[in-house]
């Protein structure tokens, strides 16, 4: 009898001891605004699967980040800005540490509010290029690299690092007629004026993404020396099919990273041979990182990916994984700085400013050569990771260049101007003058 009472008391204490820290230890709420429905679901879904699966893997393998589980909820927007407002408010009221808008339209709405609501915005590889200026955009982060970096790297690559060689040539920008697609125009216009090439803007409206015959007729007539593509969703597949149809030389057709999407290219297979895309990531299914995701998430049946369709090996899915890798590094940095695993928004902001993904860290993560090393700072919210030019060989993408560098001397003055203009249009806008580096 006595023994049982003793056991019961002990068990109670033990149970209390177990549950108490579990109560104190909250979860890290890092929700995502997803679009698995709507016109951009085709490219959205693999990225969102990747983001989600890496966080699931951390929860399964390590029990979260430094012992705190990650709660990676999704709020479906369907790329609809109206849903974006709803999701932003919902997540914020539920105590989200970060907002991931996943659409330039939603970014536009959320960006001015990040300062007021004091919530970090994480827009990996998208959003405004000017967000690199951490002094002006204290709460916004777009690592590892921005669109202006991308545009500069593409121009360097196609001109053989000598932009003057493009003098008198014609370069077309086939872009989605949307804030996102217009993003590289200021930089390309500045470069065109300086180096004497002609920039031809070919916008594609949201409603004509799948039938771009008018645009490609124009390209056929104008015969540009290069076509750069800033597309998303159904637009990329449509453009590649039209390019094949009009027999545009594939080795003159270069896309930004979102165009590195295997399903769009496997439709035309060999005919798209020579198509290039600038990508800040490179798929490597045999890496330790991807093998861990496979072991803990995919094989355990906890992933939503289309395994039969080979989604696991796609650049888009693995890019999604890396997006979460970068965010998890931000969280880790925040935890180290704060000295506690349970961080708040302000601490996470500090963490995002201290991401150090060097070669050693990438090797530890098992992601060597999947992306280039970079680091962020108070004044540099982008990190400016370098990127590769990858080429479609008829069945898969292969790296065809070393890591490319963006021309900072061209970009930084533009960033400064754009950031100042943004702050002026949104007065009162706080400037973080404490930033020096």
């Amino acid at each position, binding site marked *: 009898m006595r023994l049982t009472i003793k056991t019961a008391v002990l068990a109670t204490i033990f149970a209390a001891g177990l549950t108490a820290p579990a109560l104190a230890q909250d979860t890290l709420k890092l929700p995502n605004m997803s679009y698995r429905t709507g016109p951009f679901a085709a490219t959205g879904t693999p990225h969102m699967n990747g983001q989600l699966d890496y966080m699931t893997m951390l929860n399964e393998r390590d029990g979260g980040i430094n012992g705190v589980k990650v709660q990676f909820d*999704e709020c479906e927007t369907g790329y609809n800005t109206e849903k974006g407002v709803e999701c932003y*408010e919902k997540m914020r009221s539920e105590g989200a540490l970060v907002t991931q808008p996943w659409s330039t339209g939603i970014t536009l709405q959320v960006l001015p*509010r990040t*300062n007021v609501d004091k919530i970090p915005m994480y827009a990996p590889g998208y959003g405004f290029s000017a967000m690199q200026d951490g002094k002006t955009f204290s709460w916004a982060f777009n690592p590892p690299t921005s669109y202006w970096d991308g545009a500069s790297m593409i121009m360097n690559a196609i001109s053989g690092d000598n932009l003057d060689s493009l003098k008198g040539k014609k370069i077309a920008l086939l872009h989605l007629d949307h804030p996102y697609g*217009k993003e590289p125009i200021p930089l390309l216009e500045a470069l065109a004026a300086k180096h004497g090439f002609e920039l031809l803007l070919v916008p594609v409206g949201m409603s004509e993404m799948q039938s771009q015959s008018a645009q490609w007729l124009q390209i056929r007539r104008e015969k540009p020396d290069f076509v750069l593509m800033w597309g998303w969703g159904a637009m990329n597949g449509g453009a590649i099919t039209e390019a094949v149809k009009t027999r545009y030389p594939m080795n003159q057709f270069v896309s930004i990273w979102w165009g590195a999407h295997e399903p769009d290219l496997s439709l035309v297979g060999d005919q798209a041979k020579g198509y290039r895309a600038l990508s800040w990531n490179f798929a490597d299914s045999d890496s330790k990182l991807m093998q861990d995701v496979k072991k803990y998430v995919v094989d355990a049946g906890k992933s939503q990916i289309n395994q039969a369709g080979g989604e696991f090996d796609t650049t888009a899915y693995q890019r999604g994984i890396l997006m979460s890798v970068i965010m998890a590094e931000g969280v880790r940095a925040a935890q180290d700085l704060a000295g506690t695993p349970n961080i708040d928004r302000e601490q996470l902001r500090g963490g995002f400013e201290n991401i150090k993904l060097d070669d050693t860290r990438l090797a530890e993560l098992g992601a060597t050569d999947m992306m280039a090393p970079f680091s962020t700072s108070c004044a540099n919210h982008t990190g400016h990771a370098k990127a590769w030019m990858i080429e479609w060989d008829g069945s898969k993408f292969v790296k065809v260049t070393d890591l490319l560098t963006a021309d900072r001397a061209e970009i930084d003055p533009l960033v400064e101007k754009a950031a100042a203009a943004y702050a002026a249009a949104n007065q*009162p806008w706080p400037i973080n003058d404490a930033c020096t580096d």
Partner: protein
Amino acid sequence: MLYRVAGQFKTSYQADYALFPVRQDAWLLVFILLLAFVVFPMTANEFMFRAMLTPVLIYSLAALGLNILTGYAGQLSLGTGAFMGVGAYACYKLVTIFPEMNIVVAIFLSGFFSAAVGVAFGLPSLRIKGFYLAIATLAAQFFLVWLFQKWAWLYNYSASGAIQVPNIKLFGVTVAGAHATALTQYYFVLCVVCVVTFLAINLTRGRIGRIWKSVRDMDIAAELVGINLMKAKLTAFFVSSYIVGISGALFVFLWRGAAEAELFDIQLSFKVLFIAIIGGLGSIMGNFLGAILIVALPVLISFVPGLLGLPIGAAMVEHLNVMIIGMLIIGFLIVEPHGLARFWAMIREKLIIWPFPH
């Protein structure tokens, strides 16, 4: 019993023409206004304001504008979204060109721009009717959205091609822009909606409203009794586009904070048209009921799986939501083809004669 009208005598013409001849209707309105002005602000959180209350009011206003044209004057329009856009872009230009301008003045002025555009696109209504007119307004929809994209002056040549609402103060309180609180914006929208609704009720039951209705019911007969069709149709386009324009300005300035041209796409026109149809064409209250069903209900439904603890993914909830709302729309329209407003009117009728139905 609740709605007993016995004993409420009308002894003068004035009493007979009162806005609420039945006392209970007035009480009901007082109750709703109390709810809107006192109870909601005290109980709702920021999410409720930004995701439900403010959008419902703004969409109701847009539907009200469309209802004047389609429901009262019988002119079918598919260009509501674009007219909202005209109001929003006009307000943006006014605010950026004259930063000192009072935001209330800017919003009410911007309505005139969309009214002018509305009248211009309403001119074909003098010659064509029904579906043909709908196609003419559809042209307005596509043309205006194209214009919003191509005319860089409209968005002050910003690189993104989108308009961003600056922080605007009214009597020392920020009402628009990122620094405005949800509560201020809600009150602002509520006041504008109340004023416009009051004017609309009186307009539609007065001389002009009767002219519109006669044109809607049979335009040849209306012409024979001496109604100037051109004037009647164009005033309907003017008033309707004016209200739609105001709602567009509120839509961007008091709620969204930023907008790109695609926002005013045909999807928006359809949404407003659905609200007007489901609420009930030719009624004022229907717009509010329709907006609650189309705008607020999906938000509420998306919480249900979480509350019940059902493990459903975010995308699946969205799919289910579309299906449920679709079924509800069809269901309501089968039960009452004249919309939710008529549904309420029937309930009210039953309540008045209860417990002695005849």
